[in-house]
């Protein structure tokens, strides 16, 4: 074990103190500030701590599926008996990543971790990756997300490209079905493993969305698709210059929808996942490929997933009275389209609350709502649709253009109370990022309230914004 310098020790100490105080003062869960403090004291802290990880560092990047893929990696490694360090949901910028490392340091300045599984925001990747020196970088997909932060999708692509080129030794575990990532592979020298799906698993509502990357980056010709999964994901080739989807090393085959979720086989191993969203097949496959690339045999992989909850606290189910409420996060067009497809596939009548905010972490620009094809919501059998959040009128206006009636509500607690008291008893709540925490909180309170006979008022907690 390497000894670390006094400066790093001081940084770790102050970082930990910050975390303690944040928790004590009930100012959130302290996901990023400790990292900021530690970095101000020792700018090299991340390099020092990442050097102490025993066996390997895995990084997950991409527009959608980062958190889930990272959690699968973590679970699978733990099932192998490894000690794993993981960063908290959403804390994927530089400060968040540093926090995760700092808080994992034990007494005496020792970091006991065999593996680190770190999800990294695309924008922060150029800064973070060289400091981490990962063994494997998982790339899930690239689609439009928070254009006010990222500029345009091409800029996201360039950012990711320069990030992975800065760590030429890291093995890339790449979704070969994503044309963007196909280009990336062609432009990078890194070692690589490719995963992909060659069967049709996504329905028309999932597919329907603006095609992100219809043209070949190398010759400008329109890409030809033999099969489209969704967005720009599918089996593509360029008729102009011969560029084509790379052959996957790991292929999900015999994908089947089952009672409880999906099952598929990879390398002859059957894997079952307990989720109704088919895109989690991609996330699972991504994790499998990444683990294989760092020399894990994958024998315990299927077993490790058996108990995994794919919700990541982002998606939860609440029972309030006789109503079942499902909370879902959708923060970009691709994600939202997938949720609509899922809602449509539920044949029971349902009520809907769409909660749209435009805080900095959501993306200030909500134009993307118009890139989502809401016509499928008309066929979804929704009885009442409420819109909430700072941009509830924009959401309502978007629905108006599909001929869907909705009602804007200022107070979502009241709206949820109404929906759960009288309604279909099958409620879907779709929120974007900043709405997640308050929505979760309100639903938990309503659940308590209902249990306590409707008299329980949790005033002391309602100040959380």
């Amino acid at each position, binding site marked *: 074990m390497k000894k670390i310098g006094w400066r790093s020790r001081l940084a770790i100490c102050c970082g930990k103190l910050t975390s303690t105080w944040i928790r004590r003062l009930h100012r959130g869960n302290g996901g*990023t*500030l400790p990292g*900021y403090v530690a970095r101000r004291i020792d700018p090299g802290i991340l390099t020092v701590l990442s050097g102490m990880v025993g066996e390997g560092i895995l990084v997950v990047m991409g527009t959608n599926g980062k958190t889930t893929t990272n959690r699968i990696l973590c679970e699978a490694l733990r099932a192998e008996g490894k000690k794993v360090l993981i960063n908290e949901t959403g804390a994927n910028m530089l*400060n968040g990543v540093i926090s995760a490392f700092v808080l994992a340091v034990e007494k005496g300045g020792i970091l006991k971790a065999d593996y680190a599984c770190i999800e990294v925001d695309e924008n922060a990747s150029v800064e973070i990756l060289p400091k981490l020196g990962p063994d494997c970088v998982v790339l899930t997909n690239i689609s*439009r997300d928070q*254009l*006010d932060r990222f*500029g*345009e*999708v*091409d*800029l996201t692509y360039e950012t990711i490209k320069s990030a992975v080129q800065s760590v030429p030794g890291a093995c890339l575990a790449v979704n070969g079905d994503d044309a963007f990532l196909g280009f990336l592979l062609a432009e990078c020298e890194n070692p690589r493993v490719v995963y992909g799906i060659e069967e049709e698993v996504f329905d028309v509502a999932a597919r329907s969305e*603006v*095609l992100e990357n*219809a*043209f070949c*980056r190398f010759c*400008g010709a*329109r890409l030809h698709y033999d099969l489209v999964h969704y967005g720009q994901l599918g089996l593509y080739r360029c008729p102009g210059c011969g560029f084509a989807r790379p052959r996957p090393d790991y292929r999900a085959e015999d994908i089947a929808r089952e009672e409880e979720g999906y099952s598929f086989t990879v390398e002859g191993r059957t894997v079952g996942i307990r989720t109704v969203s088919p895109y989690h097949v991609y996330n699972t496959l991504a994790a499998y490929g990444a683990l294989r690339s760092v020399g894990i045999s994958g024998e315990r992989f299927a077993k490790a997933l058996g108990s995994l909850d794919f919700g990541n606290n982002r998606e939860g189910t609440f029972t309030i009275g006789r109503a079942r409420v499902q909370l879902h996060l959708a923060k970009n067009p691709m994600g939202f389209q997938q949720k609509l497809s899922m809602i449509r596939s539920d044949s029971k009548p349902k009520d809907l609350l769409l909660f749209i905010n435009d805080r*900095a972490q959501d993306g*200030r*620009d*909500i*134009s*993307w*709502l*118009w*890139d989502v094809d809401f016509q499928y919501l008309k066929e979804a059998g929704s009885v009442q649709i409420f819109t909430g959040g*700072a*941009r509830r*009128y*924009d959401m*309502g*206006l*978007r629905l*108006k*253009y599909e001929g869907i009636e909705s009602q*804007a509500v200022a107070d979502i607690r009241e709206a949820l109370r109404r929906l759960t008291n009288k309604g279909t008893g099958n409620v879907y709540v779709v929120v974007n990022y900043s709405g997640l925490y308050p929505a979760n909180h309100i639903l938990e309170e309503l659940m308590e309230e209902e249990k306590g006979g409707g008299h329980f008022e949790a005033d002391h907690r309602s100040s959380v914004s």
Partner: protein
Amino acid sequence: MKLTIGHLYPDLLNLYGDQGNIKCLMRRLQWRGIEAEVKPFLSGESLDFADLDVVLLGGGSDREQELVCRQLGEIRRDFGSYVEDGGVVLAVCGGYQILGDYYRTAEKEIPGLGILPAYTKWEPRRLVGNIILDSPLSLAPVVGFENHGGRTYIGEGAPFGRVLFGYGNTRTSGYEGLRYKNVIGTYLHGPLLPKNPEICDYLLERALERKFGGVWKLRRLPDRLERQANACMVERYCDRGYVWRERVGRYLPF
């Protein structure tokens, strides 16, 4: 009675919900019993401006924009005479830049179509945020979202609106967009038309006048949600406290 809306190169220029503008033009005609047809022209397809009453040119990434410029070179003369003849055009962001004389990036100069008396220079600081305009085309303030690295200089041309909040063409000029004949060039996404129905109706009225003659004033529609969505943004940026909080929030490190 029917209007035809031409959506130029949606496969190349499809950033930021341009579909919303198309849907708005179409529905607001249909809600008044006027037929509307949308014709998307993918890159490489031939198009005849004689068939079109409204043309929408959206925004794209720089790479895609260059591909478009190459394509548009072929129809430049037709496009130019369509505009000179009073043809209605809404050009948003990238489309606005393309219609100007040129777009100078850090490395090179991309020639534009030279239809609008404007030119654009790229600067490293992107101008991003909600924007509110006072436009002579609309009684209600015009609200939208801007996100551009280019600074567009319009010289003596008539701007689309005066900036009440936000950056506009160059950040310092105090004006946004450009109106030339029946063309509106603007940086406003959001998308522009659904939340600013008066602008949509203005474009439609000019297109109807050009096609059917006479003076057109379209029947008013009960735009309740439209007004709420618009007013909600205006009120927000009238609140100094909010503006201050948003500004400060931008500079916090966490």
